[in-house]
């Protein structure tokens, strides 16, 4: 019997900040080469989940197995070594503003002793893929939001990671640029078999880039579906989220009903 092992297996992951419970025993499996999208309202701990996997936050309990190896049990040195197979696109791109674009993109290569010319060539190559040729020597402050995000994506994939994390890859971009980014992600996923874990509020993006969609609600995985179930699934919380309504099981419709009072002149 050959049951494939999940690439990332999360069991009982809990995290609280002071008295506020963010993650409450989350269980989640991500199979190799699959694209998992985590959706959920703001503040439900989607970013915290990713940061726990990456070792940027220390969870209170639970385990995170990557290819069967418990990453939480590793020491700092070993964790850093594991990061070589990981790429992460931050919400605000998080480019290093003291370095030119190409050094940003080739950062991981340069830090691991890659020859400067080779690294620069690789950076140019990856930048061309994301549709940004000839910007190697610009500084990050000279880039627009969409460009910064694409440079961020280039940096994420430059060292050929096999697990890629994307934190709201399309948030804050115009619809056309969102589509460009989504297509890049799909190509990255389909073309190279990279395992992708993304966070998004953008349902169009979620439908486009994922094999599985998991909804995080009240610190737990509320429901897991595939993109073609998006229109048919009857879970009330999920429906409310997908359709973007204030009324529903998560009732927010009462908020702001006295707003007229607040601005009455």
């Amino acid at each position, binding site marked *: 019997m050959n049951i494939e092992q999940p690439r990332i297996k999360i069991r009982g992951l809990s995290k609280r900040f002071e008295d506020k419970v963010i993650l409450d025993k989350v269980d989640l499996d991500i199979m190799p080469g699959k694209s998992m999208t985590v959706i959920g309202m703001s503040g439900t701990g989607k970013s915290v989940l990713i940061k726990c996997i990456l070792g940027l936050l220390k969870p209170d309990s639970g385990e995170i197995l990557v290819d069967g190896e418990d990453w939480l049990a590793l020491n700092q040195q070993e964790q*850093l070594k594991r*990061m070589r197979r990981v*790429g992460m696109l931050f919400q605000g791109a*998080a*480019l*290093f503003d003291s370095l030119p674009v190409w050094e940003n993109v080739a950062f*991981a290569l340069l830090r691991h002793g890659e020859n400067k010319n080779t690294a620069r060539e690789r950076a140019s190559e990856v930048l061309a893929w994301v549709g940004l040729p000839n910007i190697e020597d610009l500084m990050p402050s000279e880039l627009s939001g969409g460009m910064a995000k694409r440079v961020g994506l280039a*940096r994420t994939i430059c*060292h050929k990671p096999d697990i890629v994390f994307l934190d709201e890859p399309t948030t804050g971009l115009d619809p056309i640029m969102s589509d460009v980014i989504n297509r890049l992600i799909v190509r990255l996923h389909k073309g190279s078999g990279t395992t992708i874990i993304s966070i998004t509020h953008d349902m169009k993006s979620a439908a486009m880039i994922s094999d599985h969609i998991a909804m995080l609600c009240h610190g737990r995985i509320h429901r897991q579906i595939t993109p073609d179930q998006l229109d048919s699934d009857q879970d009330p919380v999920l429906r409310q989220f997908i359709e973007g309504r204030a009324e529903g099981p998560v009732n927010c419709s009462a908020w702001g009903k006295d707003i007229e009072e607040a601005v009455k002149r």
Partner: protein
Amino acid sequence: MKFLQSFGALFEALLTQLGLYASTLGQVAKLIFTAPRYPRFILNQAEEVGVQSLPVVLLTALFTGMVLALQSYIVFHRFAAESMIAVVVSLSMVRELGPVLVGLMVAGRIGASFAAELGTMRVSEQIDALWTLSTNPMRYLIMPRVIAATLMLPLLVVVSDFIGIYGGYAISVFMLDQNPAVYLEKSTEFMELKDFYSGLVKAAFFGMLIGVIGCTEGFNCKGGAAGVGKATTRAVVISCMSILIFDYFLTAWMFG
């Protein structure tokens, strides 16, 4: 009760902060023994800490030497001991004012810039990004800065010692008509090498304090732009205070 509670909270915050500094220092000390040490970044930071601070430090030292000469002239003139001006200027510059004033100036300049730069990197997730690019942020950002500050402060102090003594010389000789040969002779007559070295040891220690405190404040900063502002202020205030406090204890220890 309320009073005791707030006092306790303050004490707890203080201990937490001291613990953070100690842990940064401990980690940096551990990292120094393994590669990569990023010599290029250490050089860059040394340029920032040392060369860029020269104008400020030189001006401070020059005027300190000048005012020391003027003040001690006014007093020594009363009992015709003007030749002792040189002793006062050189000994107080070398032993005390050189390291402390350079420390304070650099704390304002460099401590603030470390905290602001690292704080901004923290709130814009650049420090997290370093980690995901398998680079230890502690090693990449903090270690070069702490090393550079520790090495450059003594060098700045050497320069400021000379400039300060020259400031005193200029005032005594050109303004107060003292004998230049006597001044130079008296400058070194009562000075021992120990006086000079103790100043350098102090300076290295102050440099380490500035580096560790500035970097720790920035590295652990929270809460957006306001957080960066707070971290910067605290970096400057805390490093200045600790320079003055440790100055006393170092003096007591080395000459005790």
